[in-house]
């Protein structure tokens, strides 16, 4: 009985060891997802080349610039181990080769050429471990005339066409929106790596995965590109407008910068909506009789809808409309999300004690698997925190040997 219980407690990716060379956002988020589900992720760092998120912060007031107190670093690197090596030294390369020999996955999101310079190309990794899985996550890919271009999340969003489209038509200049491409790349890389891990478990074969961050983002815009190919149409910004349904969009509510979203996609929902807002006279206007009429007169319709939403808080509106079977939600800000009773009850928001930061709320697991225990929750590692464990326990080096490597600046 004890055995089955233990089996149940096992995290699904337990036993998979990942050597993670990635820095900044997309790569570390990917390896954190692997770590959240039980993989042993060893983050390869160096005192001479810090992961930029250690420097970005934000930091608690009194810890400005403390590389162990960056909130974003804590968020992206929980559940991982950290070792420090100076890759410009030959012996460091040998240590890494030994480590790769007993690992399963290697993660790289450097600009093209860095891993090759360190002797860590796929063909070289294969010599260290025949069935290794390597993921290379370059911004624009490993082939083509722009392959060596360094890119960041916002650049990728601009290049893909997404930035151009993400605004209201009334807004004449493009605007900046979050580091989404990093999340999109990490999610696709996560799926691809596990596909490769599964395939290896069945066949014994490893492989190289070339994940192009730009293409991951483009995967989310397939129909827009097809519209260009098939209909010769270069899509224009639409804001929240929908060409099939109205009312559909974001409406101002009572309060400062308070907004809700309402989406009415069929006649039933429309009737229930009219009823629940008290059948004001305008709902009988023939201009709004059918879905087609409402779409054609959506500007006027939206004004009428907003006259009602302005009387209520967004949470009131969500409650009133959802109870009546009309899809609606609150445009929550971070404060709302932090207090969200639903997310709290589901355990999505959890408190983690990062030593130099203290307790802070973080987003939790991105999906819940039945039969899987509560996730591991180790704070992000201090720089080089696991040198003794990894080089001593995992690689079996003696204390004396480790001290020498430290003294000679190889473990650094």
């Amino acid at each position, binding site marked *: 009985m004890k055995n089955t219980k233990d*089996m149940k407690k096992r995290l699904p990716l337990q036993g998979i060891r990942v050597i993670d060379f990635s820095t900044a956002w997309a790569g570390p988020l990917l390896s954190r997802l692997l770590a959240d589900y039980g993989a042993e992720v060893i983050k390869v760092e160096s005192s001479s080349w810090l992961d930029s998120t250690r420097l970005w912060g*934000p930091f608690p007031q009194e810890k400005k610039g403390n590389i162990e107190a960056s909130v974003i670093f804590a968020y992206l690197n929980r559940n991982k181990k950290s070792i420090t090596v100076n890759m410009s030294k030959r012996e460091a390369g040998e240590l890494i080769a030994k480590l790769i020999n007993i690992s399963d996955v290697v993660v790289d999101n450097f600009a093209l050429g860095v891993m090759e310079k360190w002797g860590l190309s796929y063909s070289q990794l294969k010599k260290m471990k025949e069935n290794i899985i390597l993921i290379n996550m370059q911004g*624009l*890919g490993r082939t083509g005339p722009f392959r060596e271009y360094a890119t960041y999340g916002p*650049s990728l969003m601009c290049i893909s066409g*997404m930035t*151009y489209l*993400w605004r*209201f038509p009334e807004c004449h*200049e*493009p*605007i*900046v*929106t979050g580091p*989404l491409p990093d999340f999109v790349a990490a999610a*696709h890389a*996560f799926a691809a790596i596990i*596909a*490769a891990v*599964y395939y290896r478990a069945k066949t014994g074969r*490893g*492989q190289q*995965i*070339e994940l*192009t961050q730009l293409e991951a983002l483009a*995967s*989310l815009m*397939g*129909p*827009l*590109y*097809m519209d260009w*190919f*098939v209909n010769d149409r270069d899509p224009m910004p639409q*804001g*929240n407008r929908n060409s099939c349904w109205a009312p559909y969009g*974001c409406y*101002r509510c009572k309060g400062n910068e308070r*907004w*809700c*979203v309402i989406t009415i996609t069929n006649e039933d929902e429309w009737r229930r909506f009219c009823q629940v807002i008290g059948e004001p006279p305008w709902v009988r206007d023939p201009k709004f009789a059918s879905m087609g009429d409402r779409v054609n007169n959506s500007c006027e319709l939206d004004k009428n809808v907003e006259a009602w939403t302005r009387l209520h808080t967004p949470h009131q509106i969500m409650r009133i409309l959802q109870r009546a*079977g009309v899809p609606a939600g*609150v*445009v*929550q800000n*971070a*404060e709302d*999300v932090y207090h969200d009773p*639903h*997310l709290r*009850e*589901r355990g*999505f928001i959890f408190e983690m004690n990062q030593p130099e930061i203290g307790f802070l*709320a973080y*987003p939790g697991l*991105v*999906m*819940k*698997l*039945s039969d899987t225990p509560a996730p591991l929750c180790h704070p992000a590692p201090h720089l080089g925190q696991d040198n003794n464990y990894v080089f001593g326990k995992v690689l079996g080096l003696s204390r004396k040997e480790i001290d020498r490597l430290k003294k000679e600046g190889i473990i650094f």
Partner: protein
Amino acid sequence: MAGLLENTKVLEIADDKGAYCGKILADLGAEVLKVEKPGGDDTRKIPPFKGDIPHPEGSLYFAYYNTNKKSITLNIETKNGQEIFKQLARSCDVIIETFLPGKMKKLGMDYQNLKRANPGLIMVSITGFGQTGPYKSYLANEIIGFAMSGVMYECGDPTNPPTKSPGQLTIDLASTYAAAGVLIALFNRLSTKRGCHIDVSLQEVGAMTSYGPHISLYDLDGRLIERGGQRQLGDPAFGIYSCKDGHVHIGVWSPRQWKSLMAMMGNPEVLLDALWEDRLFRQDNRDVVESLIMDFTKSLTKAGLFDLGQSYGVPCAPIHTIAEFVDHPQIKAREYFIDLIHPYLGKIKYSSAPYRMSGKPWKPKRAAPLIGRHNKEIYTKQLGYSPKELGALRESGII
């Protein structure tokens, strides 16, 4: 060549929330059976359409999200339909579903019930708010999930309402994670011989995609990120500028990148003081920085600034329209768009997968299926119905 997921059988009974999950698995080589209601899935009504003419086989949206899948029709609101679904569930590996929590149970098709006949079954449920919690029965879609996640609040320009993304970002990300969850479960099943139920919530997936972990930043010092338009984060060295033929994004984060930007602009004397390396100082004196960057970018082209930024180490990127992306030499050189032939749409270009795997290269095989295209194959060959029985099912509106 079959893909990585050869011999994996997937049933997809899902609306727009699950179609991309099915597509990822199908593109990796799984046999994905899309269960449509008789007459066709509602996502076939989503534009754009070929020639802008609504037609059940003419939706480019449907065509994109259903490559490599098979289609059968089945009315699961009928007893017979439910029985047939359970029969299919007995021999499949994965079910993707997107109903409101409770609906599958009402139909007798919930995970607890189905796994009795198939203990290795893996089910993934992709819903607005997940399977538990006070909002679990709330209706949701892309924009509601995005709004409730706290990210939409941060997106847009201050003179317009919070703005959704183009496409369906939250849904597609949720579907990607769902696919990863299925793969984790398949891997885990090799040793445990048991399946599992995976719960994916649009709201939670969305909440992971904010600038930093927004709840942590709020918890840290009460900060809220407001819609900032072109300079969302306040720093004039991180924002959008117009140039000769459109706009570019300049994305300076680090002091090193700031120095590179200065070098690229010929080290303007006004900005040489080390004080300017501080993001907050720049923010307080934004007009000075802004007008100098504007003067610099306005005489150059987007492509020129992209190249120049690379040579100086400044994150700087062109803002493309869809057509400009499609025509970009990098996209062309990588042959990112590939041709597939669809019986109604003809030969058209599709995006390929964003990962290229050396073990089993991604290979597009089939365009999206016509409605019920595989009824005969599945019902007669797999489930063993006679042509007469099939006719009867068709007449009674079950398929």
